[in-house]
């Protein structure tokens, strides 16, 4: 089209040259600015990633830094004389008498004999408070198991009080004025004496892994919550896996494309994004008020979490089913299998790694979920280890929530330690999902 102005070719060429020179000048002039903008943009990107990593690092270091010390616990060595006069005055070794005896008195008299100079009532009280209440339970348990001990001197390590524990872990400021400290000067002196005689030391905290909840930090453990979590997850898995897979199979393979299945699809996508607390409201209104199922039970927790994880499992299973190539189905149908036989014997086994990956991720979500469980009463203070799905219980995340609310300084480290345990489980589950995907995923 430029051919129309062929007569003055020369001037046109000059013109173009002039123009292009001018363009390149314009471009060159702007270049430094544009390159700076480019560098700035890149820097923002790097900054964003850096910030993300910093948040992650701060989160983990603060939790590990707060929590690692909860895996040890301060113990005090006591040589307790099991006085037959106190424990079993009749000498009949009756279990009921043994169970009701004043073991606290034994602990106290042992402490008095260790510090004979303590006389006044108030000082004695301060002295007794160095050792946890758990000491007397410990002695009782040993005596009940082995009545031979009566009349002998039992040498054992008992947990120290949480304040002593904090002091030994360096989490209490010795130099603060006495009125600001939870341990008074005298108590510090006794603790130092104990330390000199090697009667106080830090040991691995087995209580933390074997006990249920307690108001005393030194006696509180996560086992009760862990069992509750386990029971809840079992219920969730037993319900959500079969139902989720069945729903995915139907929607992906057999459902006719009509309005109803469209509605179901939209529904599932929406359910995946409904806030978890709304599922808690559903559980409260339907399972507890309408069906009258027991509160705080892992069964209800499992039901609510099932409804919550179903969308995740269905979506993941559908993706896994979709990735199985149609040729597999066609080959099965070609040798005379019915559509359901082709599904059960050929497509489903091939899709199983993907389905399992989705299920594990769903279970990990369920394991970390707290809010809906608060609604159905799983926040109760429960000391006993639950023994079935109808027993009142709590779960790990809720235990973390409860401890985070407790004022004692020693609960802070226990909360962080419980978080570390929970995160370990979650990371293990996710790692398992990744491994499953890597090992068994087939690209067609």
């Amino acid at each position, binding site marked *: 089209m430029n051919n129309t102005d062929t007569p003055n070719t020369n001037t046109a060429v000059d013109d173009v040259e002039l123009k292009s020179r001018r363009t390149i000048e314009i471009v060159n002039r702007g270049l430094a600015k544009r390159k700076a903008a480019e560098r700035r943009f890149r820097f923002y990107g790097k900054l964003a990633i850096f910030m*993300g990593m910093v948040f992650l690092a701060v989160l983990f270091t603060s939790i590990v830094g707060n929590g690692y010390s909860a895996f040890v616990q301060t113990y005090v060595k006591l040589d307790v004389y099991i006085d037959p006069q106190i424990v079993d005055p009749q000498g009949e070794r009756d279990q009921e008498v043994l169970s009701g005896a004043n073991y606290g008195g034994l602990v106290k008299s042992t402490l008095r004999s260790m510090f004979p100079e303590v006389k006044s009532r108030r000082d004695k009280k301060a002295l007794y408070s160095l050792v946890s209440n758990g000491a007397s339970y410990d002695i009782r348990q040993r005596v009940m198991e082995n009545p031979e001990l009566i009349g002998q001197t039992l040498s054992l390590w008992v947990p120290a009080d949480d304040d002593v524990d904090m002091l030994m872990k360096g989490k209490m400021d010795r130099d603060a004025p006495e009125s600001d400290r939870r341990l008074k000067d005298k108590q510090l002196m006794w603790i130092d004496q104990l330390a000199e005689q090697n009667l106080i030391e830090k040991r691995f905290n087995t209580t933390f892994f074997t006990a249920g909840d307690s108001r005393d930090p030194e006696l509180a453990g996560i086992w009760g919550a862990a069992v509750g979590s386990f029971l809840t997850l079992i219920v969730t898995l037993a319900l959500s896996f079969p139902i989720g897979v069945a729903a995915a199979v139907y929607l992906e393979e057999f459902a006719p494309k009509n309005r109803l299945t469209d509605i179901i699809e939209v529904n599932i996508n*929406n359910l995946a994004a409904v806030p978890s607390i*709304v599922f808690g409201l559903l559980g409260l209104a339907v399972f507890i008020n309408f069906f*009258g199922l027991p509160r705080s039970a892992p069964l209800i927790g499992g039901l609510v979490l099932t409804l919550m994880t179903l969308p995740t499992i269905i979506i993941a299973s559908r993706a896994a089913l979709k990735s199985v190539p149609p040729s597999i189905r066609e080959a099965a149908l070609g040798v005379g299998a019915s559509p359901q036989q082709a599904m059960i014997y050929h497509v489903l086994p091939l899709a199983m790694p993907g389905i399992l990956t989705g299920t594990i991720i769903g279970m990990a979500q369920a*394991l970390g979920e*707290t809010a809906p469980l608060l609604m159905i*009463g799983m926040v109760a203070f429960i000391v006993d280890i639950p023994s079935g799905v109808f027993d009142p219980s709590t779960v790990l995340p809720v235990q973390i929530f409860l401890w985070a609310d407790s004022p004692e300084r020693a609960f802070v480290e226990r909360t962080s330690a419980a978080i570390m345990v*929970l995160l370990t489980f979650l990371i293990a589950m996710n790692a398992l999902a990744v491994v499953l995907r890597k090992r068994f995923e087939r690209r067609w």
Partner: protein
Amino acid sequence: MQAFTLIIVLLMLSSVAYYLGRKRAFAVAQGNIRKLHSLPLYYGLYAAIWCGIPALLIFAVWSAFETTIITNLVVADLPEHIRSLGPDRLNLVVNDIKNLVSGNIVSSEISPEMQAAADHYRHLQSISHWLLVVIALAIAVGGGSFMLTKIKTKQRARNAVESFLTIVLIACSSIAILTTIGIVLSVLFESIRFFKAVPISEFIFGLTWSPQTAIRADQVGSSGAFGAVPLFTGTLLISFIAMLVAVPIGLMSAIYLSEYAGPKLRATVKPLLEILAGIPTVVYGFFAALIVAPFIRDAGGILGLDVASESALAAGLVMGIMIIPFVSSLSDDVINAVPQSLRDGAYGLGATQSETIRRVIFPAALPGIVGGILLAVSRAIGETMIVVMAAGLAANLTANPLEAVTTVTVQIVTLLTGDQEFDSPKTLAAFALGLVLFTVTLVLNVIALHVVRKYREQYE
């Protein structure tokens, strides 16, 4: 426990029926299974289904209605002076009777009438249990053996089993719909009851929220005001702060990872960011309450600012951190979905990489990014644990991020944890808030999913 045993017995009967059905099929075919219409396995399954399913259905229906029927029977037999007490008192008496039956602590003294009623209840209960066991077992054995006798070579067992399986599959997929209906109904009914006590206009436009209703009429300071505006503004304030953190960081890291980063950096940073997404919200809540909030308070103290120890800033900041991976993975998806030809075109014209991203890729990906951000907003609004642990409890109508505000989810949790009575507006208010929460997040999700889907179609 008896119920559990019954279920086990029924399952065992079913497996026996399966085994017998298979054997019978072989016998009918005289060892030549080609004569059979279906594989022997299907005859076994058919018998097992007929043996187990009707009995289990009977069991389910029975358990659902047993308590109500027995209670009504017992109440009908109570002496006249107890029955005429009026519904509330009668309910108490019935509860006491049930406690007596289960051996729990009873609130009032045990009168002989109540003891008699409890014995009656126990009697009826044991009759009902035994009746159930007999009926269920009879149906199981009857159904199973009836089907066993009907096994013939021409019987279309596979088709029957497969249509049963189809019904099961359809039932499983409709659970999603049932869940939605359940949510809507449970939240809606309680909300309607709430709006009978508190007008809906006061709830949506009222400016004061103090849900402590008086137990006695003459109590001071417990008027019970249910104006939810402070909750809405609090929720929006915290969500807004969260988005201020999450959107720039999430979006920029997604852009950097998909456009600039080499495969090595991508392979390390992406999983690390996803760890942030996998951390339970209660952990974020602990982090916010224990580390971020005191830090912000102290930092504000140094600058001479008066920061509340449960400031909206701390909760919003941590919520933002939680949402970063959500924004970044959604943006990553949409940025990767932009066709390479658009990038090549821009480079061909001499654009730098950042110009290409800002002028070409970003506008092309914008609908998807907006959809992702809407999903993130709905996540922030519905987030519970962070705000429960790090935000305030008192409703406070303010836009100052340094003050403590409360949110919809915090109020739902505080109103519903602990003891509750189901007819006070205080408890019902939680369901009304739940209705608002559900509606808002649903609308956001529908819009977001629509936008994302529409955008995806554009480039497919």
